[in-house]
């Protein structure tokens, strides 16, 4: 078979459970039976129960075999994953729902994440596998979700609350439109290793890669220099050139962004916005991060109207009130100075004290 290419992914129809094949595109409505459990009803009257289970995403083949075992037992050998990396058991026999949940509870699986909950944080590689991280991904996510577990297991928030994490501002976690985004940031310019630069890097490409024009040729060294005043630690140069690492135990850490949104329900998609410019990397449990996130979640949950997402709530009360209520200090880093900065300035004397 060697040499076979471009045959594409497995054909989805071969993988769908019978109830879906039968009712494909003929779903009529759904109900949220209880946290972690959805019921979809087809035009035909057929029912499909979904039991959602939290996943650490970084899983072993043993874990996959475990959940396959469960799917064999309760779901006719079918399961799926969600766009946020949760696992979903697809049950067509209503009588299997409670036994499945009991089994899952017994085995310690995390059932939840539906409705007005905090679902699985989309996240990235961090120190597990990437070369540009400013923080770890899986570790913070684990710490944050342990802390916020009640909001995964129950649907008691005013609205959806999507938390995402990216370990550097490449933002593989697509955190930029999350209710709460946790973003690894570097705070020190790259340290130029001239030997590596000479050996491994195409100098014009590295210069071109810098969004702020901070990189200049260093003709003497046949290498590069960085104008440190202009560098905002994006790591673009490092992606182009291994001779410019910027990771640093003191410089690196985490920033918090809030109010983003993807769906167009009620209000259009929004970007998340910076509210805490830096929290230190404090493994294994990043207590500064978990408590900052919990504070924001809880202040929002207390003050928001029903169905009001984080960003919708802030739009209603105003950012000045957000900082007030959360007690988060307003610092100069939060004020934009990139390309579209002027759009974020306030051009009216109407604001709250």
């Amino acid at each position: 078979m060697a040499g076979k290419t471009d045959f594409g992914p497995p054909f989805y129809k071969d993988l769908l459970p019978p109830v879906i094949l039968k009712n494909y595109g003929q779903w009529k409505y759904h109900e949220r039976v209880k946290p972690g459990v959805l019921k979809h009803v087809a035009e035909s009257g057929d029912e499909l129960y979904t039991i959602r289970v939290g996943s650490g995403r970084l899983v072993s083949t043993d874990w996959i075999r475990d959940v396959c075992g469960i799917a064999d037992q309760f779901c006719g050998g079918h399961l799926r994953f969600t766009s946020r990396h949760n696992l979903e058991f697809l049950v067509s026999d209503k009588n299997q729902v409670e036994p499945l949940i009991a089994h899952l509870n017994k085995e310690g699986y995390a059932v939840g994440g539906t409705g007005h909950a905090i679902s699985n944080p989309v996240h990235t590689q961090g120190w597990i596998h990437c070369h540009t991280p400013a923080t770890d991904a899986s570790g913070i996510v684990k710490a944050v979700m342990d802390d916020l577990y009640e909001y995964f297991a129950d649907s008691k928030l005013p609205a959806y609350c999507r938390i995402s994490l990216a370990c550097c501002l490449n933002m593989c976690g697509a955190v930029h439109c999350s209710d709460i985004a946790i973003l690894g940031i570097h705070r020190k310019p790259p340290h130029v290793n001239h030997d590596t630069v000479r050996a491994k890097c195409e100098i014009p490409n590295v210069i071109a890669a810098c969004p702020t024009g901070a990189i200049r040729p260093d003709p003497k060294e046949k290498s590069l220099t960085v104008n440190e005043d202009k560098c905002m630690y994006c790591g673009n140069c490092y992606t182009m050139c291994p001779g410019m690492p910027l990771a640093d135990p003191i410089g690196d850490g985490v920033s918090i962004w809030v109010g983003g949104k993807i769906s167009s329900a009620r209000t259009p998609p929004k970007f998340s916005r910076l509210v805490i410019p830096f929290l230190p990397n404090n493994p294994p449990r990043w207590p500064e991060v978990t408590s900052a996130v919990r504070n924001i979640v809880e202040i929002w949950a207390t003050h928001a109207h029903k169905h009001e997402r984080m960003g919708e709530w802030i739009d209603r009360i105003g950012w000045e009130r957000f900082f007030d209520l959360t007690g988060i200090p307003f610092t100069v880093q939060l004020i934009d100075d990139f390309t579209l900065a002027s759009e974020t300035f306030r051009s009216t004397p109407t604001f709250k004290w």
Partner: protein
Amino acid sequence: MAKDSKTPLLDQLEEGPWPSFVTEIKRAAEKKDSAKDLLHQLERSYMDRIGHWKHGGIVGVKGYGGGVIGRYSDLPEEFPAVAEFHTLRVNMPSGWFYTTEKLRELCDVWDKHGSGLTNMHGATGDIILLGAPTNALQPCFDDLAEIGFDLGGSGSDMRTPSCCVGPGRCEYACIDTLDLLHSVTMEFQDELHRPMFPYKSKIKISGCPNDCVASVARSDFSVIGTWRDSIRVDSGEVTNYANEGMDIQAEVVDLCPTGCMKWDAGAKKLSIDDGECNRCMHCINLMPKALRPGKEKGATILVGGKAPIVRGALLSWVIVPFMKMEPPYTEFKELVRKIWEWWDENGKMRERLGELINRLGMRAFLKAVDLPPVPQMIRAPRANPYYFWDPEEVK
């Protein structure tokens, strides 16, 4: 946590209700040295507060330009089993549906060649097979091919496209996301596997404006299902929701962004001025038994979404308000090709589609790909007077 544990920091992450990735690494470590070294290198990162991976060189499998991310430890002496620790991006099936049979086959292949660790799934949607040495890549791929799993994208190519569950389980789906995804993936196998563009290009497909695959924020091409006619209303079911305690005025009508709904609390009658509805989904989301998208379905096409590198994050922009989406999806595929061509010709290295449109102007883009300007493309017309005229127009 054992006193003499060699991973005292990570061990703390085995506690607590959320599933523990540390436990997973340890499980794999029982069988695989690479998983074990990963664990210990990670513990070191937790101590040093810094990553220990080096920039990856180019590694891959025969015939493909992408699909593998090269990765090397910067402490290869200490952690030799992860000195080379490349990941394979394996193209997932539409909607992430699996049979246990298929998954077990996959596990077998990966246990044979790699670390036994995976991401189910990567942020783009691929199955990530996390960590194998260079010499294992080709054999691993060969075995994957055997069981019908192909690689996904990486580098400057079309990335593995993804879609929401759509008609598989969702009553809101206005397009067949699963089928469209499969069809697009098959159509663009070459673009997926052989980097040929200025930079990466992503396609994501959601069945309705809830956008459960976050296409608007993280794909160069966002396809979002919608409808052209009126919301279908089952008045009886509306009444049921009201009777069951939903405050339809406060929860539905008052939150309708266009103000196009009216609720007569006495008569328990809901009326919608569909001409003014913008199909935001809110009312349908709240009363799925009572309200349903219309019947004349299709998709809105948006382009340009992306993360911040290099010129700032962008949300995708409407370029086709409505397109019918029926197999073989020729109109959509042709549009994608046309846009890629324009991007390929004009884009600088590492310039995503959205950035190119920003640089050359939406007008140049629309002209090049032959799309008519319509007000649905914009939030508001320009506020600055700096616009151009074609000499032809000035006569």
